[in-house]
């Protein structure tokens, strides 16, 4: 669905953010795009949506260059930025002017999500709180039925019940024919939503694996000390160490700790990636 080939990009008067970046995004997957502040997650989403143009290389969506911003491509793509402003009009009016551009827009589904999120559609969009506006846009993104959804920090600004609602709505949505990219810092919010972990660091994709593959090859457990040779990465926690270890044959499945995995990938990328390159359980 999305093919990024040798993509280079730099903001004016800044060193290059991406130099020869390569990435493939396939439909039927929900990607968790993780990275430190300034890693370029938002820039990458802007490049995919055609809002920024690469200096060199390609970003193709269904074989069309994203920067061409073709209506056939854009009508099947929806981006939700982290920070945005909406016009001073009521929600229904806004839906009426935006929705016709999306041929698969489902008005009934939209109203269902808005009800679940408890958004007052009679209110002006500018009168809604930041979190409510975000929920409104999440509803619009899902109801557009666009097959490529780019969500930049979708849970930022949502209160705890809203985060649960978001997870519930996303889990209930039929995403089999869609490709969803969720960029976030809040890795814990996404544990149950994503099926692929993609980590962007120093202008490159340093890790890109399915949750299934991670679960097959790594164990996440609490250990007393971190001196075992099987430990790939560990962090001190209360009463011991949270550790990532190589999964041995016969080991039972452990819950994937995305935060620990992310820290491990950033701190010890070679250690973690070695396991996936070697392939298989030792």
């Amino acid at each position: 669905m999305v093919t990024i080939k040798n993509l280079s990009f730099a903001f004016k008067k800044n060193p290059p953010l991406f130099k020869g970046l390569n990435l493939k995004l396939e439909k039927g997957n929900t990607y968790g795009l993780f990275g430190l502040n300034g890693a370029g997650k938002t820039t990458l989403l802007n490049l995919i949506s055609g809002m920024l143009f690469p200096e060199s290389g390609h970003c193709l969506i269904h074989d069309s260059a994203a920067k061409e911003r073709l209506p056939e491509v854009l009508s099947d793509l929806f981006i939700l930025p982290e920070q945005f402003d909406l016009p001073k009009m009521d929600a229904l009016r806004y839906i009426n002017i935006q929705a016709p551009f999306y041929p698969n827009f489902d008005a009934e589904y939209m109203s269902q999500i808005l009800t679940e999120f408890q958004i007052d559609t009679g209110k002006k969009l500018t009168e809604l709180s930041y979190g409510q506006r975000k929920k409104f846009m999440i509803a619009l993104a899902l109801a557009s039925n666009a097959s490529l959804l780019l969500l930049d920090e979708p849970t930022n600004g949502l209160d705890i019940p809203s985060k649960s609602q978001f997870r519930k709505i996303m889990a209930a949505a039929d995403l089999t024919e869609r490709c969803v990219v969720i960029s976030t810092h809040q890795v814990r919010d996404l544990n149950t939503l994503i099926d692929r972990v993609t980590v962007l660091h120093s202008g490159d994709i340093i890790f890109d694996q399915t949750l299934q593959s991670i679960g097959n090859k790594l164990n996440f457990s609490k250990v007393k000390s971190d001196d075992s040779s099987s430990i790939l990465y560990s962090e001190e926690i209360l009463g011991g160490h949270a550790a990532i270890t190589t999964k041995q044959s016969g080991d039972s499945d452990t819950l994937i700790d995305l935060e620990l995995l992310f820290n491990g990938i950033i701190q010890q990328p070679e250690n973690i990636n070695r396991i996936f390159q070697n392939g298989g359980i030792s």
Partner: protein
Amino acid sequence: MNRLEPTNAFSISRFFHLCKRSFVLNQRQWLMGLLASTGIILVIWVVPTLFFVSETGETRFENFHPAILFIFMLWGLLLTSDIFQELQTPSTAFQSLTLPATSTEKFLSAWFLTMPVFLLVTISAIFLMSFLSSIIIMMIEGASTGFTIYNPFDETTGKFALNYLFLNSLFLLGAIYFRKNNFLKTIVAFIVLVISFLFIWTILGWLYMSFLGLDQFSFEFINSDPTSMFDTLSRWVITSTALLLTYVLLKKQQVA
């Protein structure tokens, strides 16, 4: 709900929906501008009409046409300057940049609203005011005054439309080129360009005269007849270039 076909070719239904979208997004601002312009016009016309009714007809509505057209032109250029505001604000640009429509449709809808639609609204507003003014004058001065009404096809309106077409293209270019204070920046840029043009023209004139050994140089082009071939041609060239540049910049626009 009406669905627009997601074709990559030009779509007339999508073009009209874009126009509707721009209108809905900007209607409050545009309506306020129209009311403000109409209010100013009524003040400059009603006051002299009511208090200084002249037998020579100096206070008649038609005598205020140039001033009225100038006020409407200012309103038109102000709304033209703001037509791409959604695109120029980082927090709203995504709505416009990822809107499934071609750049041609986005450009043409902006031009269509700020040029032909604006002219139609302006001329209709003046026609209505002229009609009302004739009735008021007849009531003040009696039926003998006669009923004169604004002719939208007169020379003043024709010149206004041509001048507006020219200025609209420059302000449309300013609207896409500058991020903030587009109206003022376009005026400043226009003045700077005119001064630069005059400066270069003078230098070239001096060099030309020195080369030919002549001792007189006149700036005849400044006082040339506005309908002259040079003036008309340069206006059309500048208008077309400004519109083409606006389209190219719109196509190349990226999020800030």
